[in-house]
């Protein structure tokens, strides 16, 4: 019955390797809800709190990439240079919970939980983030699409932890939108992230809460690329409808599948219109 507070990533993964029952704890905003409701009964905990290496971010303008450590909180993402280089991630972070939740909750925890409603995940999917993973003595990187493999399932192996994510800095508009019952403290019913790349006028769209994993609307993206007519209201509506066709929503306590599909249509049309009204 112990709580370990390692100072480095290497120490943390060593602990995970030598204590197979140990659970990782970051901001606690998912972890402790499960503990308080007896859904999780930790015997050994490895807290990431004292690992300063996880709380860093690094904007590299020469390689057009940004690295964000797993221990970076939502309130940090909202208030730092990260918000300038990946505005969609800041918008998504801004929608999480309440100030108290955003002060504690981390990007790494969102990836650890890997809920289809996780607000940063559509952004990571649309930007084709690389997830950086550590295990004793080694590092590996996987594409986001290979990291999230199901509802609340990621491809971490035992003894591994997320160190951070590596994202491209894309020139062009990007945004995140979500539907829920109110503005604050709401888990999304449907969400979408849209990223425009000015270099080739391509678009990338990822949908949250409408399938077991985050869904990339590849067909709608390809359709967008084929359009030669100037962007119009009709085109945005058609684009939204095409995105909705790619959603795989279910009915649950938060919403019906039909409403979710409708919400995807509206959100994607709206994001497309916003992206063009620069």
């Amino acid at each position, binding site marked *: 019955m112990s709580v370990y507070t390692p100072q480095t990533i290497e120490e943390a993964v060593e602990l995970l390797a030598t204590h197979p029952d140990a659970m990782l704890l970051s901001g606690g905003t998912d972890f402790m809800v499960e503990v308080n409701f007896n859904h999780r009964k930790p*015997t050994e905990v490895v807290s990431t709190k004292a690992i300063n290496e996880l709380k860093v971010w690094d904007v590299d303008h020469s390689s057009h990439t940004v690295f964000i450590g797993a221990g970076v909180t939502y309130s940090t993402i909202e208030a730092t240079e990260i918000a300038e280089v990946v505005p969609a991630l800041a918008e998504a972070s801004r929608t999480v919970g309440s100030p108290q939740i955003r002060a504690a909750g981390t990007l790494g925890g969102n990836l650890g939980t890997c809920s289809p409603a996780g607000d940063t995940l559509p952004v990571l999917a649309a930007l084709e983030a690389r997830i950086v993973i550590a295990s004793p003595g080694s590092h590996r990187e996987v594409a986001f699409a290979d990291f999230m493999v199901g509802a609340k399932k990621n491809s971490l192996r035992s003894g591994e932890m997320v160190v951070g994510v590596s994202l491209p800095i894309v020139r062009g508009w990007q945004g995140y939108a979500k539907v829920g019952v109110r503005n604050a403290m709401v888990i999304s019913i449907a969400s979408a992230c849209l990223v425009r790349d000015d270099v080739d006028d391509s678009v990338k769209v990822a949908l949250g809460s409408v399938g077991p994993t985050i869904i990339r609307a590849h067909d709608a993206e390809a359709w967008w690329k084929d359009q030669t007519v100037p962007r119009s209201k009709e085109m945005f509506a058609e684009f939204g409808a095409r995105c909705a066709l790619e959603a795989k929503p279910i009915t649950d306590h938060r919403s019906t599948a039909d409403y979710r599909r409708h919400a995807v249509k509206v959100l994607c049309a709206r994001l497309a219109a916003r992206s063009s009204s620069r």
Partner: protein
Amino acid sequence: MSENQIYTLTINGAEREVRDSWVGESLLYVLRERLGLPGAKGACEQGECGSCTVMVDGSAVCSCLVLAASAVSSDIVTVEGLSPDGSLTDVQESFIQHGAVQCGFCTPGLIVAIHNLLDENPSPSELQVKEAISGNICRCTGYGRIFAAVQDVIATRSA
């Protein structure tokens, strides 16, 4: 690396030893049930209501979501410790004056959240005040008197 069985928390500037606890206990539970600090209230225990808000290392967080044994070496301030000599703070006085308290269950969490806001931003807009307490649920007052109390503190502090 450290193993905690008996551990020590730093709360309102004092070191407090926690004994015989289970590893999964929340800071809220330890404050209330083990250390005799009942200021922070427990209602939802899932981060939704904010009645358990305390300061940990300078940020207002839900103490129900902090694993107590992981908060060793953190600086914890509860509603009891906002004023060093135990007297009422200006925010607390203003709540009383404006009748911003009915059942009082939400009050300690609101007081901590509002102190945190005003420490970071002495002249918040009305929207910023609303945003800052969007994680603190009050079922009684309808918030009108709470906003009035906060506006009064802002005005008095800037006078």
